[in-house]
């Protein structure tokens, strides 16, 4: 096929990020400068974000058999780019005190974003795998970026080894599907599924293996084991990135796969996914009860949240895509701001992150606005009305009720009730009177720094989306229909 101008326009965000990565890389080779590198990355990601407007003029368009750039892809591209930008600003503040080479981080981040962008636009196994690896491989490096600290290095290695195993499953699954349908495109796979017959067991096996790999990346029970360790070990901006970009990309892709290939019509797979969802809600929230480390706590809480979201996959109806979009937007905003606060308190880097809950005791009395942001985020994660988290949870419940998935609805409710307990604990901790132990704080001018401004903006967004989510709902629904 020939590339036309509109194809190039459709690829613009990918190209811009690509160029950014190369420029950053060459820039580092030429002369190291932290601020310049961070600025270059920010500019590049912003440019990519702006270029999405241009992309909208040509959507939907298929660029090679591998990529399908439609409004759905554009929506999640925007989300990924925003999350990438947020992580960049956080990383800038965080790495200021880092006692090793700081600049390569941005290159890794750019590569990973590129992988995410590829994934959300892919409707072909090849681009899926390519995107997934491009997303994951830099993440290993990012997780182990503070490699002199034991936890960081350990988390990087754990993530790499387990992730490689998951990738092996993915490849094996794809191979089986290819052997069966003779094509790697999602659409052909869907056609093959609907026409039935053939070796159904192969299809089942192949999709099952792919589900295992995806469940691993989304840290769903029982493939979640790495989550807490990696969340804890990775530097805070990396955790923010991992908790958002990789989840958005994989979930968006999972939805696209399951929408074009109605897999959940197969009874056994339907049951398996439902069980995974239910287990994730329960295990994630139960495990989080005990955590005294806020990053681990967030790790387990993310398991629970992804469990809620998986309800949508089980339902796979008209509402599902809408719910996915809304939930991901609200969840990403909330998670970014939460890790933003953690990163700001841990910034600049001083050997390890300030993640133990006891360090947050009495934060309100020292940094009232930061504590307020954290409070709003905890409320949003708990799904309290007037915050964005509620809107997401409402839609998940609505999807569950609509599809009559009573067990999962019960799971969401029980899980939320459990989660209330530990989110409250964090919240209460912020307002207690501080003890005389050593204290860590965000620098006093955090509000004027890029990272701080970003966190405040996100907090405002969480509130605004919670109070008046109509524009977001319209945006997402137009993205699905277009």
């Amino acid at each position, binding site marked *: 096929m020939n590339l036309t101008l509109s194809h190039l326009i459709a690829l613009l965000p990918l190209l811009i990020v690509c160029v950014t990565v190369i420029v950053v890389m060459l820039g580092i080779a030429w002369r190291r400068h932290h601020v310049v590198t961070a600025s270059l990355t920010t500019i590049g990601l912003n440019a990519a974000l702006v270029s999405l407007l241009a992309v909208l003029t040509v959507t939907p368009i298929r660029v090679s058999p591998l990529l399908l750039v439609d409004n759905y892809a554009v929506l999640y591209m925007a989300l990924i780019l925003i999350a990438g930008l947020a992580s960049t600003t956080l990383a800038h503040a965080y790495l200021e005190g880092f006692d090793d080479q700081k600049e390569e981080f941005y290159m890794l981040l750019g590569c990973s974003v590129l992988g995410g962008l590829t994934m959300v636009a892919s409707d072909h196994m090849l681009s899926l795998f390519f995107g997934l690896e491009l997303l994951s491989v830099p993440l290993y490096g990012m997780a182990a970026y503070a490699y002199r600290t034991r936890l960081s290095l350990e988390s990087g290695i754990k993530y790499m080894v387990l992730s490689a195993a998951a990738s092996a499953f993915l490849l*094996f699954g794809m191979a089986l599907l290819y052997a069966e349908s003779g094509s790697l495109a999602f659409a052909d796979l869907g056609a093959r599924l609907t026409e039935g017959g053939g070796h159904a067991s192969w299809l089942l096996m192949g999709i099952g293996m792919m589900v295992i790999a995806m469940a691993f990346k989304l840290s769903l029970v029982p493939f979640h*084991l790495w989550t807490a360790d990696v969340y804890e070990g990775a530097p805070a901006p990396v955790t923010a990135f991992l908790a958002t970009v990789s989840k958005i990309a994989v979930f968006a892709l999972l939805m696209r796969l399951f929408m074009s290939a109605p897999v959940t019509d197969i009874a056994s797979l339907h049951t398996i996914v439902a069980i995974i969802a239910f287990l994730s809600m329960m295990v994630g929230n139960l495990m989080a009860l005990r955590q005294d480390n806020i990053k681990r706590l967030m790790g387990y809480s993310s398991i629970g949240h992804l469990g809620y979201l998986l309800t949508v996959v089980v339902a796979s109806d008209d509402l599902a895509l809408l719910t996915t979009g809304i939930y991901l937007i609200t969840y990403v905003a909330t998670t970014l701001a939460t890790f933003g606060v953690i990163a700001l308190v841990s910034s600049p880097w001083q050997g390890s992150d300030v993640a133990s809950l006891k360090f947050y005791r009495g934060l309100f009395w020292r940094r009232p606005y930061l504590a307020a942001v954290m409070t709003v985020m905890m409320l949003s994660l708990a799904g309290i009305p007037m915050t964005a988290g509620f809107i997401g949870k409402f839609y998940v419940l609505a999807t569950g009720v609509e599809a009559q998935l009573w067990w999962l609805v019960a799971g969401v409710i029980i899980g939320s009730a459990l989660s209330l307990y530990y989110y409250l604990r964090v919240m209460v901790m912020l*307002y207690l009177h501080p003890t005389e132990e050593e204290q860590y704080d965000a620098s006093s001018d955090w509000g004027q720094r890029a990272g701080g401004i970003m966190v405040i903006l996100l907090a405002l967004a969480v509130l605004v989306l919670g109070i008046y989510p109509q524009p977001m709902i319209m945006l997402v629904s137009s993205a699905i229909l277009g």
Partner: protein
Amino acid sequence: MTLPWIPLLTFLGVFVPALAIRGGRTVCALATATAPAVALGLVLFFYLGHDGDEVMRTSLQWLPAMGLELAFRLDGLSLLFLLLILGIGLLIILYTRYYLSEQDSMSRFYAFLMLFMTAMVGIVTSDNLLLLWGFWELTSISSFLLISFWSHETTARKGARMAMTVTGAGGLALLAGIMLIGKVVGTYDMGTVLESHDLITASPLYPAIIVLVLLGAFTKSAQFPFHFWLPHAMAAPTPVSAYLHSATMVKAGIFLMLRLHPALSGTELWTVIVTLTGLVTMVYGAWFAFLKTDLKGILAFSTISHLGLITSLLGLGNSQAMIAALFHIINHALFKASLFMAAGIIDHEAGTRDVRKLGGLYRLMPITTVLTCIATVSMAGLPPLNGFISKEMFFTEALASQQFGGLAWIVPLLAGLGGLLSVAYSLRLAYATFFRRPRQEPPKTPHEPPWPMRFPVELLVALCIIVGLVPTLPQSPILEDAVRATVSGEMPEFHLALWHGINPALLLSMAVIAGGIVLHLLHRHMMRFNRQFKPQDARYIFEGFVQRLVALCQRLIDRLENGSLQRYMFLLMAVSVLAMALGLADLDMLAGSLGQQALDPIVILGAALLIMGGVLTAALHRYRLISLLMLSVVGLVVALTFARFSAPDLALTQLSVEVVTMILLMLALFFLPQKTPKESSGARVVRDVLIATGFGGAVASLNFAVLTRDLNSISNFFIDQSVPGGGGHNVVNVILVDFRGFDTLGEITVLAIAGLAIFKLLNRLRLFMPATDMEGRLWSNDRHPTLLMVVSQTLLPLALLVSFFIFLRGHNQPGGGFIAGLITAVALILLYMSRGVEWAQQRLDFQFQPIAIAGVALSTFTGLCSWLFGYPFLTSTFDHFHLPLIGDIELASALIFDGGIYLAVVGATLMILANLGKLTTAHRPNKDMP
């Protein structure tokens, strides 16, 4: 459009205290009171200005996508509750001014209180179920803030968290219930929902709806068995208790049942669940109120008991019962708020709330004593106060209830028991606090509180008396409208009076009063009786439950997530195998249409070698060198397998790749310890063997499935097109250089880059090279064995010739640039090894980097050339030439491309291998030196 102003005003009131606190505490209290006062005026204005039957409604679009509207309504029910919420709220504001001590932040307290008031006002005025739910959650949060107001106290924090967890969880259940209602009715609009009684009760979802909605209501209204949070919420400042537990928070659940009464009630399910829960709660609460010694504890359990009373009336559900319920809501709010405030005064003045330490207060605080006693009489349900009237109505309904058939006697029995107990605890409260001789001095000598602090109590007690004596007063305007809003159909006839003549209810009342007095006299015995039971503190049970749950999680975490990568890997693999096992166990289903191939000895031998090699590699992995040798067996057999199944070109490629890989591994291994210490226990080894077997089995059965199927893959296309399209008989080579030329170009680029990166990484790296093994034996006396030197030097030209031959013939027969490159590399490496790096470098005095890059450039250039002829990138061409002597020769442009591959492979491989070899030469181990 003015209706939304009521919640908005109270909401604006949230911000007033913070601004007004600069003017002093009195100014702050007054300023805070403004907003609810105006709102109260507004309510009265609306109410007086509209016709009785009509419901005021107003709605604004908010979230049409979710069915959420900013809709408010004002009907009789809302009005009744609004009067309670705002009226008592104002009194609480006044009372708080004198209650809070100097250390407490008054502005914070008022802000929380106003937030809570907003939530309550929102609940009772919402005209949309979702909006109602939003305010419902807001009450949970704001009550959390209020209860934990004294956050330095652990009991306050724990009590607040318990209240929040229980009511919050109930709220989530309610949300699910509301969503089910929305699904059945199709809208969340209150008006429509209230008219859809038949639709909802006929729906198969009805039981779920009832259970979920009632879960929400029961947790909020502290019904058994969710009552336990309420006594612990008493850790809050007394104004909070007075407000939350008389008129507002706990009444929210009651309100919800009332509000949805027209839509949900009237079925057997509703009656049974609600009535029985209410009655059990009533008796349970009253019994514990009787046993408590803390003044606020008594009131808390009494609240639970009275809420149970109201709930059971709602369960009975006929119109008379509804009237009784509504009336009792008013009465309970009046006497309970005054009692709580009185308890606060006593606490404030005497410094304790423990009735065992109090006593004889009537001498010191006569006015407070009178006020409290009147309210207590009302609480006990004695004439001539308001409590008596509503209790009479309750007894009447209990005696008349028919819904339980043969078990109908249980309703009046429980009702009577509850009434009896409430007489007893009321007596005890009054007697022990005011009239009994004090056993010990209270911490402070009490005296009458300042007048404004007592004023709210006085006002409420006055209302109690007025309502008791003239019960028709609230009946006409307020109660009738409220009844109209909750009872569907005809407006029932009713009149409230103290005296209805002698009837069964009166007789029951008298019996209950007498019994209550007797029970009170037996109080000491009751206490002794109770002491035989283990004290059950709900906080310990709740916390214990939480702790056990947490401990269970901790055990799970320790078991599953101990941070061990091996364990994670094991679990990942085990789960995956389990998930796939079922599908893969059924070999018959997996078998395809092709027959199974016959086994011949060679294949069996190969398989055996392969298995042996694999097993030994794993088993001997601690001895790296031997393990590596075993690995090479595996590689070799795989290469031979290709040859056996007629793919000589693949076999050749695999073979040369194998050799290079082995050399690379050898060079790398050189720097690692020769042995690894034993780390795995026997059990772990067995486990790993099992997992490996399972996985091997899974892969084997998949292989079986693939091999027994006829695969229509694209390979036939390549085989067909190889000669006409690419001009070569070696399909693999044609694919590499022609069909998939683009891929190959990418690959060699990557290879070259990887080589460069390794070159760069190893640059200036110097590693210690041991000359002996760990036991101190010399590796070798002769670093460069002569025989090897001679052989390798002899082989070099031969190998180069062979590689050239293979390169040239590659297009048609097994061979090609890739293999040729590897052969060249191997030959050169052999030279390096036999002669040492210094020697080889002196003779091969050129760099390998340019070679690799030149290779990539050559390939790219070939591709670009096709543009000159107007073809797309990497189009290849071929032709046959007839040369003298040699004969017919076919030359394809792909050959040049292949040359590029050759150069890139040689350059990159040598860049890697030669540099790895170089690491060791620079440093001789100096510890062997004498």
